[in-house]
């Protein structure tokens, strides 16, 4: 009896440090900023506690915030579509290649290990006024003045695609690997062209991977503030930049709390829809 009880207690002893850390460093802090978002910023230092709706009214009704939120979702959506268009064929190539798949996959995952800030700033070397493209075009005599290619929305999207593409490739690859190739052969032997068998057999079966990759690209893309700071112009702020501004620059923590929670809720709805239809297991597969 006592041994049984000890057996039953053991996993909780093993779990408690990790669960305690997640509770204390994530869940309680999230609840705390819910409370904090109803406080008020005061110029004197300590914020005024209480139940005030001011921050939420500002976060939800300010036209500038709404514009930035919509723009953020637009940038994330374009990024996700581009990642899918670039990543799917690449993942298909790796999955169906007769060569060494592991090496091919590793090669494409290598940039994943390279620091995000370095991959982001590397585009300055390519697109900047004295970057590779401008220098090349000027040397060829195509242009006489450097083209302004940096510090705009397109540069931000390019940086995000470069950052997020490995997530898409990995997820699509995992789901393509899980498909029995006999199914494709069966389709072709029944008279389908290769293109038809891809469209009607392979593509539908790989949709869970595509969705998982898409979700990761969208959520990670919509939550970034570094890429717009490095590659975007002053008008290319994304929603996370508003959060950063409020918290770090203006020290308006109550408003920053409300803005963070708004971002969490918008992206949370997407994750919930995804979870409702596809479940978290697919996502874990791609991450592990």
């Amino acid at each position, binding site marked *: 009896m006592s041994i049984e009880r000890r057996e039953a207690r*053991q*996993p*909780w002893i*093993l*779990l408690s*440090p*990790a*669960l305690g*850390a*997640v509770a204390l*460093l*994530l869940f*309680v*802090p*999230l609840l*705390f*900023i819910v409370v904090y978002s109803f406080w008020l910023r005061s110029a004197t230092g300590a914020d005024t506690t209480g139940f005030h709706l001011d921050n939420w009214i500002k976060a939800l009704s300010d036209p500038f915030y709404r514009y930035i939120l919509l723009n953020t979702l637009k940038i994330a959506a374009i990024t996700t579509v581009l990642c899918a268009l670039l990543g799917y064929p*690449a993942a298909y*190539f*790796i999955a169906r290649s007769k060569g060494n798949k592991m090496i091919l996959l590793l*090669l*494409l995952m*290598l*940039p994943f*290990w*390279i*620091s995000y*800030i*370095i*991959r982001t*700033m*590397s585009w*300055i*070397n*390519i697109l*900047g006024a*004295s*970057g*590779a493209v401008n*220098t090349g075009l000027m*040397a060829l005599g195509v242009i006489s003045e450097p083209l302004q290619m940096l510090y705009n929305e397109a540069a931000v999207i390019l940086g995000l695609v*470069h950052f997020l593409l*490995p997530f898409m490739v990995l997820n699509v690859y995992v789901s393509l690997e899980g498909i029995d190739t006999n199914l494709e052969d069966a389709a072709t032997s029944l008279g389908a062209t290769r*293109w038809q068998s891809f469209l009607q057999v392979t593509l539908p079966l790989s949709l869970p991977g595509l969705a998982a990759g898409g979700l990761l690209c969208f959520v*990670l893309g919509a939550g970034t*503030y*570094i890429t717009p700071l*490095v590659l975007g112009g002053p008008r290319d702020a994304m929603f*996370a930049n508003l*959060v*950063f501004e409020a*918290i770090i620059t203006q020290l308006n923590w109550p408003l*920053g709390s409300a803005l*963070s929670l708004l*971002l*969490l809720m918008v*992206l949370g709805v997407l994750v919930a829809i995804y979870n409702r239809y596809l479940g978290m297991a697919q996502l*874990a597969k791609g*991450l*592990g």
Partner: protein
Amino acid sequence: MGWGLIRLYAIAVYAFMFLPVAVVVLLSFNANQFGSFPMTGLSLRWFEALWNNDAVMRAFRTSLVLGLMTAVISTTLGVLASLALVRYDVPGKNLITTALIAPILVPEVVLAVALLLFLNWLGIGKSFALLLAGHVIFTLPFVILVVQARLVSIRRDVEEAALSLGASPVQTFFSVTLPLLMPAVAAGALFAFTISFDDITGTLFWKPGGVETVPTQIFSMLRNSISPEINALGTVMILLTVGLPLLGAAIARSLSTKRGR
């Protein structure tokens, strides 16, 4: 669509991924004063400048200490939790797993704000402790995913054999389970270290004034203009974050083939 076309497309995607990084490495050896194109020759002067740059060296030490401490704590918590989830029938396993993975499901900016405000309210302001807490919490899910995947493949009977031969559970863990688990522990620790070493999103919220990690140092240097020194620093970072895992994988592989014989 022909296979040749797909291959061409894939090569283009590979080039897109690699070229900008290759240019960083190339320009870091640039002898040109301004560090931009056209290159005038090869030189190691920017690496030397880096070595003599106190701010950069300080940032390196901070990142290294932070990464190592994060790896130790995160891996310890992650291994214990994974053991419980894989080895025992815990009620509510799915819910627990989701809770432990939650730090990567929440956007990092939101996690950063929540942690900063809460710990500040508890009296822990922007500090190394806050940085460490933040890095531990968002590397933990990765460690758990890696270690769990490995743990599933270790057979239970080896442990049971040790137990039936009179070893205590603790002895069994240290002399049977842990050695078998070592590759997963190493992979988890390496993962945690690399993610911590690379992080900037949370770090900018948590770091105290005057303290820089390598990524935040690069970020603040970018404010001026892109200098060849940044490219040199980038090259060092690339060597560290790509070379280290590759080395780790190679070691793990040679260890496991030896054991297999």
